[in-house]
């Protein structure tokens, strides 16, 4: 993926028909000046979707702000992304009162993919943060229960299969294409 594409991925919404979203967006941007980057934060064309780019060390503050100010309790999920140089964690929330889905994004550098976990604030993220650590190698520091979640027990430590550059060193993807029964002694 090239630089230009990653920019055009953001489809800003027009002001009309998105008044509620813009009102919330402006309020948040004003309240969180310094914690949230303007670049990467926008109101999406799809109705009721807001995206915020958060600084990695400010994530806990931002989540706490949303929880206190906007009564945000519905934690949806967390999805990882591989952007090339950076790895990204997308926290998806839903504000039940305004009925708006917000996404908080954290970019962490590939060589030191760490940021502080928010599982102690919102227990709902226990499994997904573990999953992010396993599949992308992004480490939520301070996670209360770090453990194996999705991958098999014998999975090597330094392999993160969802990263784009994971090249399947052990031929696992090819192996799954074999068919037909084995000989009795091979089992």
């Amino acid at each position, binding site marked *: 993926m090239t630089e230009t594409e990653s920019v055009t991925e953001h489809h800003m919404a027009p002001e009309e028909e998105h008044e509620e979203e813009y009102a919330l967006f402006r309020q948040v941007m004003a309240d969180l000046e310094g914690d949230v980057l303007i670049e990467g934060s926008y109101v999406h064309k799809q109705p009721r979707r807001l995206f915020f780019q958060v600084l990695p060390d400010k994530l806990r503050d931002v989540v706490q702000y949303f929880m206190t100010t906007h009564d945000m*309790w519905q934690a949806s999920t967390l999805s990882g992304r591989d952007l090339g140089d950076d790895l990204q964690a997308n926290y998806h929330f839903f504000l039940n009162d305004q009925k708006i889905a917000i996404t908080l994004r954290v970019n962490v550098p590939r060589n030191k993919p760490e940021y502080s976990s928010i599982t102690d604030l919102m227990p709902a993220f226990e499994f997904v943060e573990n999953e992010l650590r396993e599949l992308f190698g992004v480490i939520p520091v301070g996670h209360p229960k770090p453990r194996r979640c999705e991958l098999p027990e014998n999975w090597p430590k330094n392999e993160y299969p969802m990263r784009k550059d994971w090249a399947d060193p052990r031929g696992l993807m090819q192996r799954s*294409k074999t068919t037909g029964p084995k000989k009795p002694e091979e089992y």
Partner: protein
Amino acid sequence: MTESDEPRIVIPPRVTIPIGPQHPALKEPGMFKLTVEGERIIDAEVNIGYNHRSIEKIAEGRTFLQVLYLAERICGICSATHNGTLAQAVEAAAEVEIPERAKFIRTLTWELERIHSHILWLGVAFHEVGFDTAFMYSWRDREVVMDLLETLSGNRVNYAMNTIGGVRRDVTDSLKETLLKGLDKLEERMKYYRDVAIYEKTFWNRVDGVGVLPNKIAKSHGAVGPTGRGSNVPTDVRFNDPTQAYVHLRDSGEFEMVLSDREDVAGRAIVRVVETIEAVRMCRWLLHNLPDGPIRERVRPRIQPNEVLARYEAPRGEVIHYLVTNGSDKPERWKVRAPTHANWVSMAYTLRGGYLADAPIILAAIDPCFSCTDRVVLVDAEDETIQLKPLDVLRAESNKWYESRT
């Protein structure tokens, strides 16, 4: 016998009981380590990942249309859910508006699926508490809705109704009649099961006050779907963030979110049963108000770069598809969050302090769906053939066949 000076306190031994990965209460692999003292559960630990099929990774190598079929196979029970939600996500990314009729038919499939899934759950719940007669009866009546789905889509489980830009099959007038007739029967039967679930004393005793999930905990632990609604948490995407024909359903004012403040398994059961009756009414409304028009819109295979968060209320709760496109015909990143995944955390909470005998019904109460949870993504239509041939061989053979024809 000598009398000891100090009274000894006897603590029952702590036994760790593994439930799973294979256990008759779970039709799917998942592992719950329950630490029990006598019959009381002291601690519960959820261990998943037995079903991890790396669907998200496979999807990155497939085109959108292929991923659509793969999405269907994330979960066999809510196949229309993932299939439809992905189609919705791709349409949103391509910024295409699909015809009204397609929206209605898509919603109809979803609601019929909800009926089938809830009856399935009801049967499983009866089975978990050893009420096999009601289990058999409810699954017998589930065949009615399975038949309706089969006549509608041609398949019993993986419906493949949705495609990018609309739906694949139309609802004819005669089919409409059949559906309406079947819905009448279903409504009658569901009212009967509602009464069974509420007034059958032995069943009620097993679910009343069991697996209590207080409203506050449900909120902080992110419970969704009937699990959350059974604890009076108003999370229902159909009303909070409607898409497709749900906008019309909500605007018609005839339907409301089903909530229960019982906070236990009984509450979840009631929410599910009442929701099924609501779903039958919704189906009927959709059929009566079905607009005319085309059922499909053409969408170009290459989707512009975009990022989309598609949500839908599956039978088990909120499904989220986070789709990032990059201008090619393959997804850049596709994340699926199935509802069960959100309910694990709260379930471990509800297990603690309960009886061992209640563990199966508590587990079943969230309607766990491990296959949704342990992520997957990808599909080969050719593999549906019966022969056990590698894909490459098949491809070579098909090439030869075409060569021989020309």
